[in-house]
């Protein structure tokens, strides 16, 4: 009896071994050191995407602040125009870093200080009047960053001459200039904390955390960028203004860059392209693709069981559809688009929504990253 049982046990193990050895040789998974190495993906993302993109934004922000200081020193139509141009460049550069909603940017809630819109004109005016308002409170988030500057540079008066007047001869001109300075100081301070962290020790922390558990880099990163895509890109830029999410109520005043009218479409396209490039691991300055979510998904051989199409291809195809819908928006002024051609806005929203599902469900599932704490025995 004893021998029979031992033999039975051995036999079971052998069977398991034999059967498992004749698995499909067509799709061997590459060994570590190649694409399935999350460390390589994280390194490429940190060194070739995040850090250079932040450096680019830093440069644009620096120029913008210089122009702001010039405008404050001498408000006139020329300095105003230069300030606006620098503001636009910096706003576009921001769209390329806004998606890094993980690590220091998330810890310090950078986006709350940079780009909460629609901006709150009442709060801005109250802050200007008080002269000592804190920009750290929740209530003041919509009164600072790019959207507040949009109002102060483009929307505060009807003509350029009137705008300049508000910063020169108007009774509150000094207070207004002080607020402009407070706003750029705040953007500088908030961004420097994040940028310095990436250029300091966080880069190594990020690259070294190669797991897939709750606080691993891969998990934080995927959760962060997917949240960005869903909340800020899909809902913020299209879902809310188009009314797709509530009652079909059109909110043309809730678009990004509402006052300037000539940049909103570019901002949306820029951030979407930045997201696509991030997914594909395209170097920010080099343009060369490296380790990325795409290569990682491919190394896992993530594909649809029925069609055998790689998941990364399915996702990229959907990105293309979104880009095509974005291109169909008739002009830069998205508030006008909401009022006159909302179907185009809804179309973008609908396609973004399909991409959200793929990112949130298919990609997250395939990478098996942890989203929540607590024990789990496999659903």
């Amino acid at each position, binding site marked *: *009896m*004893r*021998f*029979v*049982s*031992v033999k*039975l*046990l051995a036999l*079971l*193990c052998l*069977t*398991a*071994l034999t*059967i*498992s*050895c004749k*698995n*499909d040789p067509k*799709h*061997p*998974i590459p*060994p*570590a050191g190649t694409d*399935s190495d*999350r*460390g390589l993906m994280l390194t490429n993302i940190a060194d070739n995407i995040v850090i250079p993109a932040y450096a680019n934004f830093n440069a644009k922000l620096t120029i913008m602040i210089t122009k702001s200081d010039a405008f404050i020193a001498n408000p006139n139509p020329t300095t105003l125009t230069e300030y606006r141009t620098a503001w636009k460049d910096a706003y576009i550069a921001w769209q390329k870093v806004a998606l890094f909603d993980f690590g220091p940017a998330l810890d310090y809630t950078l986006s709350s200080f940079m780009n909460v819109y629609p901006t709150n004109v009442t709060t801005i005016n109250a802050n200007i009047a008080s002269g000592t308002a804190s920009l750290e409170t929740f209530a003041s988030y919509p009164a600072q960053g790019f959207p507040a500057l949009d109002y102060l540079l483009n929307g505060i008066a009807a003509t350029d001459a009137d705008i300049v007047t508000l910063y020169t001869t108007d009774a509150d001109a000094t207070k207004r200039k002080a607020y402009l300075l407070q706003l750029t100081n705040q953007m500088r301070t908030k961004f420097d904390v994040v940028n310095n962290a990436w250029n300091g020790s966080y880069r190594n922390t990020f690259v070294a955390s190669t*797991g897939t558990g709750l606080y691993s880099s891969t998990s934080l990163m995927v959760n962060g960028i997917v949240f960005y895509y869903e909340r800020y890109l899909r809902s913020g830029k299209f879902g809310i203004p188009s009314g797709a*999410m*509530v*009652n*079909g109520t059109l909110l043309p005043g809730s678009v990004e860059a509402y006052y300037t009218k000539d940049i909103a479409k570019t901002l949306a396209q820029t951030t979407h392209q930045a997201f696509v490039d991030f997914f594909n691991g395209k170097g920010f300055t080099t343009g060369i693709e490296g380790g990325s979510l795409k290569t990682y998904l491919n*190394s*896992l051989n*993530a594909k*649809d*069981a*029925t*069609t055998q199409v790689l998941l990364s291809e*399915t996702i990229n195809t959907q990105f293309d559809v979104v880009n095509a819908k974005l291109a169909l928006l008739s002009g830069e002024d998205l508030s006008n688009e909401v009022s006159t051609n909302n179907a185009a806005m809804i179309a973008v929203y609908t396609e973004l*929504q399909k991409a959200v*599902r*793929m990112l*949130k*469900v*298919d990609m*997250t*599932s*395939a990478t*098996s*990253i*942890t*989203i*929540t*704490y*607590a*024990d*789990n*025995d*496999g*659903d």
Partner: protein
Amino acid sequence: MKNYFLKTTSVAPLVIFRIGLGAMLFIGILRFWFNGWIEGLYITPKYFFPYYGFEYIVPLGSYTYILFFICGLSALFVAVGFYYRLSIVTLFLSFTYIELIDKTTYLNHYYFVSMICFLMIFMPAHVYFSIDAYRNSTLRANKIPQWCIDSIKLFVCLLYFCAGLAKINSDWLLHAIPLKIWLPARNDMPVIGFLFNYSWIHFLFSWFGCLYDLSIPFLLWNKGTRVVAYIFVILFHVLTSMLFPIGMFPYIMILTALIFFPVEFHQRIIQFIQRFIPGSRNPIESDATFIYSKVQQYFVKGIIFTFFVVQLVVPFRFICYPGELFWTEQGYRFSWRVMLMEKAGYAEFTVKDASGKYLIVNNEEFLTKQQEKMMATQPDMILQYAHILADYYSVHGFKDPMVFADVYVALNGRLGKAMVDTSVDLAKEKESFGHKSWIILYNE
């Protein structure tokens, strides 16, 4: 058969099991407490998902801490055998109450603990090496009916065997899914991590897991293979605990499997523990045999018989429902389906009313991340949530709100699909044991 019920055996294995179970649960409660999970899972959420038929089980707010305290204390009392009957009943009730509050936290091993506590209510696990027996000499006995220990063994066998049967499916055996998805995510583990990139390892683990579950009860029961089998138990569960976030489960199973070991083994453990208890007596205190009274005997046997009938039927109730079980999850819980599938979902709810008013719900306003994640793949929770929304919006600006769900679910690495008929007003659908006709069945 009659002779079988007259057989007696040493109480030692049952005593060790009692001590181990009580200690494990005590540690489990402490772990829950210190991880902040009482707050996170039972106090923070605004809404909960009670089980069908148990809707009267409600969270207790900050009193939940008292519930956990009672649960932990009774676990400790069970371990030392202090007011054993009262303690084990309290343990069973408090633990089960906690588990019934929210489906979100359902885990097979919690269910196992509840069920094993229920069985232990009827076992004479305190007649030996317990404070009760120390204080009351008439209680002391060192022999008990053999069927007491056998029923625990049988339950463990049933669990493993059902877990093994559930693994006999094409995804698990022919495609090594979900391990093929889960293992590469651990490829940065020291020493063995690199192996998880290889397809043959996924197959090896899948097949080994299946054969392990199917055969381990018999290999443990059989004297000749027991030691080898136990080594496998330890290896298997330690490995799974390193790979997956499954908490206390591996340790509970490692401990439970000891019940299969011979009397002398348990006797030695008791002697070992006694060395640390000054003044404790010689273990051979009594030659008495614990005997249930005639009435007790009918009662207890009846309950245990019913228990096993239920345990045999419940895991197979899924046959009564149409469609793919992994997709609909109708009859999925309470069936020892452990680590079987990779499922993720995204559920978007639209609330409307007759006036044309509508809004898309932000789930974060109602649910925790964990609740949202669980809800998005499980139809019964989707329905419960739809009713939570209907109730909320009926007093927040909507007249007789209708609730529609757009649910996208990916199962075992297949591309996501719609799971719910978006034209059905879920506010009008009722929960029942019947099939949910609004689930779009999975066609491959």
